[in-house]
C-alpha cells in the first residue's frame, strides 16, 4: 500500500469514528426529546412549550453537526 492510500484510509476511519460518535450523541438528543414529552404528560404547564422547543433545537443542532461532519471531513 502506498502512503497516499494509507493516508486516505486512516482519514476515512477517523471520519467514520467521528460520525459514529456524533450518532451516539444524536441518540442522547432523541432521548431528551422523548423524555421531555413523557414528563410533559406528568406535568402540564403553560411554559412546557418553551422546553419542548429547546429540546427540538438541541436535536436539530446535533443533526446539523452530523451533516457538517459528513460534508466537511
Amino acid at each position, binding site marked *: 500500500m502506498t502512503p497516499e492510500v494509507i493516508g486516505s484510509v486512516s482519514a476515512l476511519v477517523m471520519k467514520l469514528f*467521528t460520525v459514529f460518535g*456524533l450518532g451516539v*450523541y444524536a441518540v*442522547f*438528543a432523541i*432521548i*431528551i426529546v422523548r*423524555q*421531555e414529552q*413523557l*414528563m410533559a*404528560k*406528568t*406535568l*402540564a*404547564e*403553560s*411554559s412546557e412549550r*418553551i*422546553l419542548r422547543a*429547546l*429540546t427540538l433545537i*438541541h436535536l436539530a*443542532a*446535533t443533526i*446539523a*453537526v452530523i451533516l*457538517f*461532519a459528513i460534508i*466537511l*471531513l
Partner: protein
Amino acid sequence: MTNPSETKHMSPFTAFAFHPKTLHFETQEKDETVILFLRQHIILILPWFVLSLLLFLLPTILFPVLLSRLSAPFIIPTGYVVVGTMFWYVATFGFLLTKFIHWYFNIFIVTDQRIVDIDFVNLLYKEFSETQIGKVQDITYNTKGVLAAMFNYGNVIIQTAGEIPNFIFESVPYPDKVIDVISDLAKAKAVKDTI
C-alpha cells in the same frame, strides 16, 4: 397565618406557586385543586448556568491560546476544528438542557386532598409518590447554610402514617409558608373527618 398571594402566571423558572391556575398534573382528579406547587430554589441551578457560560466562552478564549502555545507534531485539519467547535457548543447546550430538565421536572405538589412528590431521577427513571393530606402526622423544616439563609429556602420534612413514612421537599423556597399551608390543610381535613 398569612397566606401567600395567588400565582397568576407561571414562568419556566417558577419555584413557588400558590394556587397556580395554569397547572395540571398526571393523576389529578376533576374535583382536586392544586394549592401549592414547588420546585427546588432557582439559586441551586445557578452554578450550572455559570459553568455552561464558561464552557461556551472556552473555545473563543482558551482554544486559540492553547493552540498557539502547544506545538502539535501534526496539523489538525480545519474540518475537524470546525466540527469539533460546533459539537462543543451543542454538547454544552445539551449539558445545560439536561440539568435544567432535571430541575424543572423535580416537583412537589400539594393539593386539597394529597401531597405529591414527582422525582425525575435521570433521563430514564421517574418516581411518583403521594400521600393523603389526612395521613400527615408531623411536619418540620430546616434551613442549612449561608445560601439557604440568604435566599430563604430549606427542607420540609413531612411524616405520614402512610406506606411512605417521610416526604422530604428538598431546598424549596419559603419552607415556613409551606408548612403553614400543609398544616392548615391537615387541620381542615381532620375537622372535616370528625364532622
